[in-house]
């Protein structure tokens, strides 16, 4: 999908292979959300259970799961990170090796 197409349709979320059992194999999802917290809610409504893989039930980000917005690692709270059409979000496991 081109950047122009994404900009017209919404936020592009790239789904890691470990979570594609939730998305029925889709490696990309396009959605509309005002911020990263909303993005997770939107994913959850379409693919129940997926949110719990990124944040735990107390709302804390899992320690070795990283979220990148337009290739920048997100360090702040998800509700504080605004999204706009054309943004690309990557959800990736961190390299937890030595």
């Amino acid at each position, binding site marked *: 999908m081109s950047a122009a197409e994404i900009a017209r349709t919404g936020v592009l979320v790239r789904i890691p292979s*470990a*979570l594609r*059992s939730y998305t029925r194999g889709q490696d990309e999802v396009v959605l509309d959300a005002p911020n990263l917290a909303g993005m997770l809610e939107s994913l959850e409504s379409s693919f*129940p*259970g997926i949110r*719990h*893989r990124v944040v*735990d*039930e*107390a709302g*804390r980000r*899992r*320690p*070795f*799961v990283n979220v990148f917005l337009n290739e920048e690692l997100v360090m702040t709270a998800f509700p504080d990170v605004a999204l706009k059409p054309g943004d690309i979000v990557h959800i990736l*496991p*961190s390299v*937890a090796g030595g």
Partner: protein
Amino acid sequence: MVDVASAIKKGSVVVAVGTKKGGFLFHSPDRKKWSVAGPFMTGASVYHMVLDPRDGRTVYAAAPHFAEPWGPGVYRGRAGEQLKPTAAAPKFKEGSNLAVSRVWHVEPGPEDEPETVYAGVEPAALFRSADRGDTWQDIESLNYHSTRKDWQPGGGGLCLHSILVDPKKSKHLVIGISAVGAFESRDGGRSWTTENRGVRAGFMPNKYPEWGQCVHKLAWDASGDGSMFQQNHCGTYHRGPDGGSWTEVTKGLPSEFGFPIAAHPDRKNTAFVAPLIGAENRVFPKGQMAVWKTGNSGKTWRRVSKGLPGPNAYLGVLREGMSTDAEDPLGLYVGTNTGQLFASRDEGDSWKMIADFLPPILSVSGGMAR
């Protein structure tokens, strides 16, 4: 290496082995020649894996969702086929500010509730599923027990690792938490009592508190009257049918410390332990791996080690590392933290290694394919 389910013949003994890098099913029609299916959940730490005795075909496992970063999971599948995560993992209720970090144990429910499964998790909590693990009920009476704020973890974490479902009374449950102790419910989990009278907490100022004991593993005594065995950080115990105080039965064993305990499924007063030197050195005494057996509720113990490695075998067995089958004579299975699986076809009197070079073994569970 993965067999198909049909290769596990009906009537075969199946030993489900969870390791630090995946799960395996060892199976044999005669307990002499063994085959293996797996690995399943490759790369993941499989804390527990069990063949459901109610149908002899469904396998449940406790392992992270594909890999550690993605949180806890419960897996389900037919014996010999790849297991898949159930639709949801256990979760604490909203607002609790608690989050499940790991599933330690999956326990199939009673015979007359074939869809019921229990899960014990870290931080310590019990969950029940009525649909084979796809949705989970937070057992609030235990999980938010009035004592919870003071619960302390054992060396492995604050984990609920033992779940006993009374085969005769399905509402009778007993669970074990490290380092909190045993709790018992007689109303299906609606209410719980602490069940630690007589159990020593040698690391506490008060050596016999109401709770705070470091239970390592619980097992029903086959007497079927609620009697139980317990391996604790501080000794080995038996509790009689009255539901009263535990009796310490460490005398006769080489150490008060060990992790697993397995009871004979049919012969009352009979159990097996694997004592280690102690908390500071969790290997077998004198470099000799050994299992100890009692036939009188721990009044006396007999060492059985023929065929087990040693001397100079400096290894250990973890809390889920020993199990039985239900054959006659009884089969016993022990997995080591150095990746060997040993089997006995004569109630522990002699042993053979049936697998080596596995990843460190976290759990062993015997059953029969149907």
